[in-house]
């Protein structure tokens, strides 16, 4: 049954089926019915992760090293858990910025840098080509194994056949045709390849079915269940040892690093980016995918161990390469149909990967490698007005063919030296180099272009030195001494034991060192270099993608372009029809009439750049748009304006702070005033009650004792009158101060002769002095010292000061002096009383601040006199000060501006 004709027929029939499915998918999409807009189809397309390496290689790995095949699937499971956080963010960013590949993502994030895009593309191509060639090898080997049937012999001399008789060559060509047909049907890479995704999802079903089919046959057909296989395997100490992980530090670190790089690979492999991000129809499909995809991985690994153990038992002593057990086990039992199914399963795993990977790589090569060169001004002038959309398609298509040819060449020359798994892991380690730039780029605004570039180059360099250079040595391109003695005999630099590190396996060793250099350089260099304005803009747009609305937020372009210029630029790359469509859509969304818009504003320029980016990549799009936009993007004045805005914001916030502190202070003052008011009221009531009580008590005595001696009656009545006077005075004072403070006082301004005022005040208070036996010394100048003021109030001041002096003196002298200086009039009242302590001198002018003299009982006076005095003096533009020492009397000095002086108070109208 298994003659070459049948095998070839089945192979091509399967490929034909794929073409049919892809064609149907595209037709349905054109008709508007998307079959891939379904979370399960999306999840199945993610399963393009499982390649021939999974299909054949996992069994091989399980047979050689035990559980070490598992981390490669545990990593993606863990990444799935983060899918909603990480992958959704990448999808959103890519949709908004029309990003179509990993290289474009990195270039766009770090300021649309062409250099970075080119470097990322090179890394992807160099890192992934071996992986593609691995798939070709798998197809070739599996074909040869079927072909050799009924012999099951190793090794298989697959490179012996000339190229034109090698199946892998034709498979490669066929895959190139498929990729060209369904991967580059239209130009815009953001337009989804519906048919392609449908075919990939179908392939995922086929490989899973085949894998489960073989697994079920081996477990339950060949043996009586898993327990049976296990019992047989446990009898062999060598095999039973392989059921565990060697308990060494290195092995555990290798295990963890495997999980790490597969986590990165499931996100960052070009084909994964293609299906997970570019081909994603709806972000919410992730909701299902984050558990359905791991479930798929779980299912496809379920029978790996039974097949590996079964194969080892069936072919002892390594007679058959464990990588082929999936195929050779059914063959050895003569189950040719099952073997054919297994072969198709392997082929589906390999072709799916090759198709998507080449399309993803071709997009990168075209947009980030060829375009930047082609769009240089020198070249651009050659085809100034030509329609470039056909050129673009041609570049894409030829790069697909080129990638496949490179992969085939690699397979012919180097591929045979490696088992499946090691090549796959080498590629994983290569794409893990993107991790710092991408994951750092979407969560950390601080990463900049120089940092990302340094990190990528160093990481890639270390990867190349520790994984690729040794393989070149092993295949004879470099001397073997590189591995055994180190370059130039330097032991520390041996590629498998860099700096003497020997605890890890080769992959773990390479991953550790490359990531160390990569992450270190990315963070370190970013921290010590400055990002340009566009890098900062892009960083913010990427990191805060969920904060900004869907589109039109970047508006990096400050300049304007003419509408026709912009349109003709788009036409050259998109073709007239699609340009027209895109422009009409924009006009509709903004409610403008496109034909009436000769000037394109910044927003439209940004929109056009994104349309262009979907076709030629963000870096090239930027260059092209810059060629038609007049002004510099973000010219110096703009930067200054932005800086100015920032400064204003800072100024505002400072002002705000100041106002806040002022408010706080005012509030404190208010509280203090409130407290004063309370005190004031309580003092006033106290002051009012004391005379009232005595008046009342004396009045009662007079009423109840009509027969009191007349002398005593007179005395009591006298006290009642005195106390009533005090009350009246107090109430007047309270009213006065309240009026002064609230500004309602009715000032009667006019020229006032102070000499007269003093005379009058002395006359009024003379009896008080006489009562206490106080001598008066008056020292008045010649002439008429005149001030502008309210005569009655100034009189009040004089009386107040004199009666105060009397109050605190027992005998002695009160000296009153009036001096007329140029511009001012000075007036002093000096007593020889008890004096005022220095700490009290500041507060005696406050309301109700009565000085409590120790042991002298109740303070005399209302405590309002000096407060009112000071307010009156201040109102007249003068000052009042006190000089005193306890026991030596006190001197109150009032200085008033003379009438007509500059600082004399204006007479209010």
């Amino acid at each position, binding site marked *: 049954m298994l003659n070459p004709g049948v095998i070839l027929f089945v192979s091509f029939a399967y490929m034909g089926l794929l073409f049919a499915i892809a064609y149907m998918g595209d037709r349905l999409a054109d008709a508007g019915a998307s079959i891939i807009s379904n979370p399960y189809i999306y999840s199945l397309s993610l399963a393009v992760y499982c390649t021939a390496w999974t299909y054949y290689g996992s069994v091989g790995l399980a047979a050689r090293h035990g559980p070490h095949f598992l981390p490669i699937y545990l990593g993606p499971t863990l990444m799935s858990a*983060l899918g*909603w956080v990480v992958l959704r963010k990448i999808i959103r960013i890519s949709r908004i910025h029309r990003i179509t590949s990993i290289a474009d993502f990195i270039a766009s994030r770090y300021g649309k840098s062409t250099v970075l895009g080119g470097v990322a593309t090179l890394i992807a191509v160099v890192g992934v080509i071996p992986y593609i060639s691995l798939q070709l090898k798998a197809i070739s080997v599996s074909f040869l194994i079927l072909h050799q049937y009924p012999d099951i012999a190793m090794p298989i001399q697959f490179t012996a056949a000339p190229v034109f008789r090698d199946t892998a060559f034709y498979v490669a060509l066929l895959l190139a045709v498929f990729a060209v047909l369904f991967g580059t049907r239209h130009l815009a890479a953001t*337009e989804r390849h519906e048919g392609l995704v449908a075919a990939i999802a179908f392939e995922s079903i086929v490989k899973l079915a085949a894998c489960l089919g073989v697994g079920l046959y081996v477990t339950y057909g060949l043996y009586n269940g898993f327990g049976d296989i296990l019992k047989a395997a446990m009898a062999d100490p060598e095999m039973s040892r392989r059921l*565990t992980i060697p308990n060494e530090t290195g092995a555990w670190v290798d295990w963890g690093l495997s999980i790490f790089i597969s986590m990165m690979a499931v996100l960052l492999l070009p084909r994964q980016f293609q299906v997970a991000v570019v081909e994603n129809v709806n972000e919410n499909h992730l909701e299902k995918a984050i558990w359905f995809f791991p479930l798929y991985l779980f299912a496809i690994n379920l029978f790996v161990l039974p097949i590996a153990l079964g194969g080892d038992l069936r072919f002892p002593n390594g007679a058959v390469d464990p990588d082929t057990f999936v195929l050779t086990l059914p063959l050895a039992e003569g189950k040719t149909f099952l073997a054919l199914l297994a072969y198709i399963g392997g082929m589906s795993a390999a072709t799916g990967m090759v198709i998507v990977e080449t399309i993803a790589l071709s997009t990168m090569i075209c947009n980030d490698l060829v375009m930047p060169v082609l769009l240089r001004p020198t070249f651009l002038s050659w085809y100034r007005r030509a329609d470039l959309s056909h050129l673009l398609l041609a570049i894409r298509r030829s790069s697909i063919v080129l990638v496949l040819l490179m992969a085939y060449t690699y397979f012919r020359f180097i591929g045979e030296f490696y088992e499946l798994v090691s090549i796959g892991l080498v590629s994983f380690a290569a794409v893990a180099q993107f991790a710092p730039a991408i994951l750092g780029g979407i969560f950390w605004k601080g990463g900049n272009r120089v940092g990302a570039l340094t990190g990528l180059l160093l990481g890639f360099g270390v990867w190349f030195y520790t994984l690729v250079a040794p393989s070149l040595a092993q295949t004879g391109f470099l001397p073997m001494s590189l591995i055994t003695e180190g370059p130039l005999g330097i032991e520390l630099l041996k590629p498998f034991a860099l700096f003497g590190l020997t605890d890890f396996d080769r992959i773990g060793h390479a991953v550790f060192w490359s990531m160390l250099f990569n992450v270190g350089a990315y963070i370190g260099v970013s921290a010590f270099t400055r990002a340009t304005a566009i890098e900062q803009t892009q960083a913010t747009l990427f990191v805060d993608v969920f904060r900004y609305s869907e589109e039109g937020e970047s508006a990096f372009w400050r300049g304007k372009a003419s509408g026709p210029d912009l349109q003709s630029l788009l036409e050259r790359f998109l073709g007239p029809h699609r340009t027209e469509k895109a422009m009409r859509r924009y006009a509709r969304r903004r409610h403008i009439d496109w034909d009436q818009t000769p000037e394109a504003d910044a927003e439209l320029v940004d929109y056009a750049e994104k349309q262009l980016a979907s076709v030629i990549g963000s870096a090239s799009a930027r260059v092209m748009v810059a060629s038609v936009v007049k002004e510099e993007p973000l010219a110096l004045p703009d930067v200054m304006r932005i800086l100015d805005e920032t400064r204003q914001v800072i100024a505002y916030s400072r002002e705000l702070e100041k106002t806040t502190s002022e408010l706080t202070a005012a509030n404190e003052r208010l509280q203090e005033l409130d407290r004063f008011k309370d005190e004031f009221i309580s003092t006033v009531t106290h002051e009012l009650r004391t005379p009232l009580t005595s008046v009342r008590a004396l009045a009662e005595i007079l009423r109840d004792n009509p027969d009191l001696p007349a002398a005593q009656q007179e005395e009591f009545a006298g006290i009642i009158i005195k106390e009533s006077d005090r009350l009246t005075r107090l109430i007047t004072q309270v009213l006065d101060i309240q009026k002064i403070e609230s500004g309602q006082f009715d000032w009667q301004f006019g020229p006032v002769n102070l000499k007269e005022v003093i005379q009058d005040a002395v006359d009024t208070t003379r009896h008080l002095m006489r009562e206490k036996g106080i001598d008066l010394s008056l020292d008045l100048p010649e002439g008429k010292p005149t001030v502008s003021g309210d005569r009655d109030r100034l009189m009040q001041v004089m009386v107040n000061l004199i009666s105060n002096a009397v109050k605190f003196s027992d005998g002695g002298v009160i000296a009153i002096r009036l001096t007329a200086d140029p511009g001012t009039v000075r007036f002093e009242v000096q007593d020889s009383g008890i004096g005022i302590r220095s700490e009290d001198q500041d507060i005696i002018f406050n309301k109700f601040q009565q000085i409590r003299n120790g042991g002298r009982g109740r303070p005399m006076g209302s405590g309002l006199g000096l407060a009112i005095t000071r307010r009156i003096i201040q109102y007249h533009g003068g000052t009042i000060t006190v000089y005193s020492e306890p026991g030596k009397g006190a001197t109150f000095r009032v200085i008033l501006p003379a009438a007509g002086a500059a600082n004399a108070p204006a007479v209010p109208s």
Partner: protein
Amino acid sequence: MPSGSPRNRRLSALFWLGLLLFNYPLLSLFDVPVIILGVPLLYGYLFGVWLLLIFLLALTARSRPTLPLPDAPRQNDQC
């Protein structure tokens, strides 16, 4: 990892749980050549945790926020 909605936090928590259970030192506790219920202990443990994690992921991912997502799908926006 950044946390936003409850779902993001739960999924991140599951990630850390998985990372712990799939790695040294917890993993080494099950790294003994013993057959339990007809399965080698290490494999039983790994596949068991794996399935449990998938189950928890499905449960968590399904729990829809009460409010409609602000980022509702934007289809038909491509040219």
